[in-house]
């Protein structure tokens, strides 16, 4: 267990060292987050009305509702992108083969390469919320931070399964990733990012509740905007864990099968 953690941290350290050589993008992301928060604030000011506030949960403003939806949608995006990108970068830089001839397992390589991007996404979300609170009155005081952490962890595990499946597709077919686009497309419409799922037609609501992002956003809004404790969010958290329990082993099996297939066809390093 300690060895596995140590191995995972090696990848985090590697990515941190690489990131330190690019300082400009970090500053630019801080500025981008400011403009992002401002965008949601002014859209909310434009559409806000007493009727809209009544339709939203916890009597929150549309600004707080949409900002939480947008920034946590970033987690799904990061999960779907991170594993793909780590494979593409390793393949293009030629580091995939040297990594695969070391003694760490493929699972460690895959998960280890995802830690840094997830940490960066978390920091980016924190910056968004900080700008929102500092300049536009986002109610950070209403947050239950331990619950936020639990929901974050459960969401991360559930989304990672989708991300690993996506990278298995990439490894096999090399280009494009319709599965990723489909998940992101459906999630952006039916995941409750900018409006409640309840306004969707019935058939789309069924799709929404087959998607972990819906539960993640519900639980995260409750934790951040309504000070909800973990027991009151047991249902969405358990459902997220169930998604993780199914998706993670299935995705790792799929990835291992794909890797084996590329070793049979000799296409591991093909683009």
């Amino acid at each position, binding site marked *: 267990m300690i060895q596995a953690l140590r*191995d995972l941290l*090696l990848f985090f*350290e*590697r990515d941190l*060292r*690489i990131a330190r*050589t*690019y300082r400009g993008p970090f500053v630019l992301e801080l500025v981008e987050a400011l403009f992002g928060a401002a965008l949601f604030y002014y859209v909310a000011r434009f559409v806000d009305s007493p009727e809209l506030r009544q339709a939203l949960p916890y009597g929150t403003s549309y600004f707080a509702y949409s900002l939480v939806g947008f920034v946590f949608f970033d987690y799904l995006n990061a999960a779907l992108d991170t594993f793909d990108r780590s494979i593409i970068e390793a393949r293009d*830089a*030629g*580091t995939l*083969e*040297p*990594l*695969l*001839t*070391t*003694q*760490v*397992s493929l699972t460690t390589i895959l998960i280890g390469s995802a830690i840094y991007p997830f940490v960066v996404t978390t920091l980016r979300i924190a910056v968004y919320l900080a700008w929102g609170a500092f300049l536009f009155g986002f109610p950070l005081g209403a947050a239950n931070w331990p619950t936020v952490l639990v929901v974050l962890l459960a969401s991360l595990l559930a989304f990672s399964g989708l991300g690993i499946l996506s990278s298995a597709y990439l490894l*096999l*077919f090399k280009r494009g990733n319709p599965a990723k686009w489909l998940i992101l497309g459906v999630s952006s419409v039916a995941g409750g990012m900018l409006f409640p799922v309840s306004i969707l037609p019935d058939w789309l609501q069924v799709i929404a509740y087959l998607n972990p992002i819906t539960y993640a956003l519900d639980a995260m809004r409750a934790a951040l905007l309504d000070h909800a404790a973990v027991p009151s969010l047991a249902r969405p958290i358990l459902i997220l864990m169930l998604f993780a329990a199914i998706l993670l082993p299935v995705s790792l099996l799929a990835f291992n099968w794909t890797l*084996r*297939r*590329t*070793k*049979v*066809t*000799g*296409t*591991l390093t093909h683009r």
Partner: protein
Amino acid sequence: MFSSFRHVISFGVPASAIKVDSLAKSFPPVYGGWRAFLQPFAASTCPALRAISFEVGEGESVALLGTNGAGKTTLLRILATLLIPTSGSALLAGCDPVRDAAAVRRHLGYHAGTDLGFYARLTGRENLRFFGRLNYLSDSILEARIPELAERFELGGFLDRQVRTLSSGTLQRLSLLRALLHQPKVLLLDEPTRSLDAIAASEFRRFLKTEVHLHRGTSILFASHLLPEIEFLADRVVVLKEGSLVAFDTPSGLKRRTGSSSLEEAFARLTRHAVHSSEEPRPV
């Protein structure tokens, strides 16, 4: 001279560092257009290796010699656990690269012959430390071994520079250093001196022969097109032609069996007139 006999002395029976038994590998044909979507599921019908068998003894150095497309790299990649053979079997340090890839990787140092494979924004030292730690080398071992090997490869002045600023030859040396860092039992090298200048190549060969091969007793299987390099480094030579093993003998044995005065001449004769049994030389 002694190294080629070292493996027979202990028990009378040669111990194998590498054992390749009827190993065959085919690849699927390359599809274009819409059929490219079916590529991952296509049957493997293009042979790259045709049921080859040979053994590399412990502490032995064996060269793979063949024209382009003869199957040298395919063979090395199977042994390095990066490809799965179509049929037959292989053992590296007694472990199966397909069924027990993790165990094989413990004993394996692999250099793919390219200057790729490093993180461009990290320094040489950071790259080596990262890969060394993935091979479970402690920090104290890495602290001692990296400068020592860097000195050997004349890389001392380059270790703390970002890899993206290094020349192709320097990267090649860095890659060789990485393959040796965990002191593997078996070293697989694919054209190890391809990008090195004449002096660096000569130094590297000497280091490989004296330190790695003779002193540490590391078994080496390397592919090369450089016949003087093969004569200098190899105890025996596997000659491949279009995926088939046409001869397996010492350099002098190859010359003798083909009635040639040089290895180049022997190679030309062997690949023009395939000798089908490695044990029974046929007049050429």
